[in-house]
């Protein structure tokens, strides 16, 4: 390892860092999650779902369901307008209006006094269907004469993009080598351990309150208010503890929230609804499947000249965030290396299958599998070491990438070298396979809404001398609030134990975009830092006014120059009395510079960018194709690490999810029906499946993030896929190009069988 890197890389020793008090409730079994909620007079809601992948609804008869004792209401599409809504494109309805488009589509819903009655009533609703022809494969859905899913989207294309930067065609003409391959990635479920649950409460005085755990509560309540045609200030989201999200709970399951709200409005009682694990799989919002055709042009010396991609993503019946995910799949990996010429076509296509959404890193990990495999294919053909090929081309600090990303900090080359060194690139063990992979991830998007790029926070001095931080940014175990606590404590000069983070009630927290696009620490944390600094300023001014010359805060008191310490509680009460009831409050707003992002999608999309390189060491049983993962080395440039213990937890967890996607996971369908809708059939890694994971952080800092930090939570799973794919290819002699990489596929590859 280079000398300077050694000093900048943390020791692997883990210190016990600060942990938020909520963690104690979690280990004691006292933390209240969505599934645990009970309110007085609460009813239970259940959805009747379509048994057909595509059908016209001829009639719905709810009379038998309504006559069951204990049933309080039954709702159908008639309770809503039939105007589609959506996150990116408007194609979704809370309850089907005359037509169902996948097995699981919501047809009707009931509220009853208990689960059993609700289930019985849902089954008693009589629906007459006229079955329509279905289409399950995107390429068939694109063909002329195929069944059309949505009138507003002719040709079954929900979203598409054609993009050219530079002159790719000319570059391909000049190239010494052109490599190409096609890759296939199935739909992946975030598989958070707590299925989505909510309780909706409606009353004429306060309006609608949704008790549900969301990564982006303000985005969800904005959509719910719009669909229910309610004023935004009458819709509030209060969050219980969240049992995992990983992108799947940014918007969660909007139809579930809208349906439970309507049941609550109709009955005047709180209504609890949840998805069973099976419903999570058949009617949740997994990340889109993708077919990626890639072509790359290189010089003999390994310089990459151009890349061309043709991507079809499988939307299922409705879109959720799938257009954004398709966009990330199609372009984020272009900025890992200095690729001057790009030609891209991406089409998001409707099929009669489960609707799709997003998962940790927005498809960047799916694209990493394809683009990083192709890098190694090129290296093999050129006879260049894959590490050297990457070092020759990789993005560096100060670069403006092909899509206009401004790289203000970047230690990617160091990450690559460190990952290779740690895995033993120069001293490989015979019979084992080694693979490398590199990644970039946007860190704090500023283009979701060009007019709302940043975040704000409030820091309030309480009458007892403690400090409360109000933020709309969410923590669900990934450590955002612990990071905020540490950031606020550092800015205030207080022990972290005196700081509490409040984020779970949209009525009192600042409006926020929430936990997505790795914006928590970088954007949310910066707002917290600014709010805390503002409060500190106000405390110091007030302390002077109250009769003390102050120079700073230490251990819950203002440090006077005369060594007289002022009790913060006394100061808070002084201000409270003087103003007849106000608290000292610091407001922080972090508004990143406006982006030069243009209509072609060129421009800086994020305040900064995180980088990573992973290396994998594997072994293949040559008789059976069975894959043994010996080790993953994960080296990250996430700027300065705020909380090492949770940073390590993010790496371990993210690498394990990457491993799951590489080797085990993926939706299987039989004529539109999800064939693996249980954890027995949709396998996520267990403790016995996880190899040794070694982590390193290259802490160069960053000019934008609070205290030089950058995001980590999403990029941790990205390079795993390419690293494993390349290690398998190193051992097997060729690449498995369709995920997951199973023993069967490796065996077929080595035996030279034609895969289906």
């Amino acid at each position, binding site marked *: 390892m280079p000398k300077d890197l050694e000093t900048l890389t943390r020791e692997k020793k883990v210190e016990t860092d600060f942990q938020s008090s909520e963690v104690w409730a979690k280990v004691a*079994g006292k933390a209240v999650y969505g599934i645990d909620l009970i309110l007085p007079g609460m009813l239970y809601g259940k959805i009747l779902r379509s048994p057909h992948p595509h059908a016209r609804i001829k009639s719905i008869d709810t009379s038998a369901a309504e006559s069951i004792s204990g049933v309080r209401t039954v709702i159908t599409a008639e309770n809503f307008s039939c105007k589609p809504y959506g996150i990116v494109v408007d194609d979704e309805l809370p309850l089907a209006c005359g037509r169902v488009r996948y097995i699981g589509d919501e047809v009707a819903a009931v509220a009853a006094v208990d689960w059993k009655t609700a289930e019985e009533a849902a089954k008693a609703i009589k629906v007459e269907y006229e079955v329509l022809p279905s289409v399950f494969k995107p390429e068939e859905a694109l063909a002329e004469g195929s069944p059309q899913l949505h009138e507003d989207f002719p040709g079954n294309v929900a979203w598409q993009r054609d993009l050219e930067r530079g002159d790719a065609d000319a570059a391909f003409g000049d190239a010494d080598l052109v490599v190409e391959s096609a890759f296939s990635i199935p739909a992946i479920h975030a598989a*958070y351990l707590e299925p989505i649950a909510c309780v909706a409460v409606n009353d004429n005085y306060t309006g609608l309150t949704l008790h549900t755990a969301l990564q982006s509560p303000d985005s969800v309540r904005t959509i719910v208010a719009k669909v229910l045609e309610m004023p935004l200030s009458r819709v509030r989201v209060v969050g219980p503890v969240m049992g995992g999200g990983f992108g799947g709970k940014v918007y969660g399951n909007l139809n579930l929230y809208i349906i439970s709200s309507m049941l609550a409005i109709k009955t005047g009682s709180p209504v609890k609804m949840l998805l069973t694990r099976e419903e999570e799989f058949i009617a949740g919002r997994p990340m889109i499947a993708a077919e990626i055709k890639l072509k790359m042009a290189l010089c003999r010396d390994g310089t990459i000249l151009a890349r061309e991609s043709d991507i079809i993503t499988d939307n299922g019946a409705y879109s959720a965030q799938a257009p954004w995910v398709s966009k990330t799949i199609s372009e984020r990996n272009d900025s890992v290396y200095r690729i001057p010429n790009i030609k891209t076509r991406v089409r998001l296509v409707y099929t009669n299958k489960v609707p799709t959404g997003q998962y940790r890193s927005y498809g960047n990990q799916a694209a990493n599998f394809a683009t990083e495999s192709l890098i190694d294919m090129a290296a093999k053909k050129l006879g260049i070491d894959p590490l050297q090929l990457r070092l020759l081309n990789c993005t560096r600090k100060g670069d403006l990438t092909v899509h206009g990303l401004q790289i203000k900090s970047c230690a990617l080359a160091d990450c690559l070298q460190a990952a290779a060194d740690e895995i033993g690139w120069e001293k490989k063990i015979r019979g084992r396979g080694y693979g490398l992979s590199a990644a970039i991830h946007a860190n704090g998007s500023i283009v979701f809404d060009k007019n709302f790029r940043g975040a704000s926070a409030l820091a309030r001095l309480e009458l007892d001398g403690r400090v409360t931080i109000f933020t709309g940014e969410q923590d669900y175990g990934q450590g955002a609030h612990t990071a905020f606590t540490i950031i606020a404590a550092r800015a205030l000069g207080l022990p972290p134990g005196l700081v509490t983070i409040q984020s779970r009630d949209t009525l009192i927290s600042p409006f926020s975009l929430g936990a997505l696009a790795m914006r928590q620490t970088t954007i949310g944390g910066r707002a917290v830092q600014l709010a805390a600094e503002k409060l500190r300023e106000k405390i110091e001014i007030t302390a002077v006014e109250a009769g003390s010359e102050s120079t700073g805060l230490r251990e819950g008191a203002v440090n006077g120059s005369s060594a007289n310490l002022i009790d913060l509680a006394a100061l808070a009460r002084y201000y409270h009395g003087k103003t007849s009831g106000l608290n000292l409050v610091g407001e922080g707003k972090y508004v990143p510079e406006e982006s030069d992002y243009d209509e072609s999608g060129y421009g800086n999309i994020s305040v900064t960018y995180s980088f990573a390189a992973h290396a994998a060491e594997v072994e293949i049983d040559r008789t059976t194709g069975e894959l043994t993962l010996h080790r993953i080395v994960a080296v990250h440039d996430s700027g300065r690490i705020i909380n090492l213990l949770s940073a390590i*937890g993010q790496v371990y967890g993210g690498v394990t999810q990457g491993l799951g996607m590489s080797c085990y996971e993926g939706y299987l369908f039989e004529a539109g029906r999800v064939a693996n809708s249980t*954890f027995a059939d949709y396998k996520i890694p267990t403790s016995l499946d996880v190899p040794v994971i070694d982590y390193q952080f290259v802490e160069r800092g960053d000019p934008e993030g609070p205290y030089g930090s950058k995001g980590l939570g999403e990029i941790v799973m990205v390079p795993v896929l390419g690293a494993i794919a390349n290690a398998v290819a190193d051992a097997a002699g060729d690449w498995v190009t369709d995920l997951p990489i199973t023993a069967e596929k490796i065996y077929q590859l080595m035996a030279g069988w034609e895969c289906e």
Partner: protein
Amino acid sequence: MDNQEVVFTLNEELVRVYADPAESLLTVLRDKLGLFGTKVGCGRGECGACTVLLDDQPVNSCLIPFGKVEGRRIETIENLSRGEEYHPIQKAFVEKGAVQCGFCSPGMIMSAHALLKTNPQPSLQEIKTAISGNLCRCTGYKQIEEAIASAAEKKSRR
């Protein structure tokens, strides 16, 4: 089925509960007895979030018909701490960063608790095997394994 009286030991107390013997133990614990520490992740015995101890053995409470607990001992996560006094396994989970979303934690801790009762100094492989029925999506299991090893070590030193 009709409700019937089932007498069993719950968290070291003898209790009589009237409930449907065909209901799962999980449903009775949560919906009848208000013990919400035991979580529901799948309802099919595949995720381990509902792990409790039945006569010191870890079981998926979603798979145990309530009638079967007659005369037996049940221990849930609620028995491991008293107010601010936490069990060494719980402390180790916090210290080692073994908790992220925390949804698997009660079941995971109960599996660890069962392991350490019968095997106070387990090997890493024994720890991995003991929690292999408890799915965790957040942590990659590493810090959980470290926590269990650390709790075992502290126990043996005392």
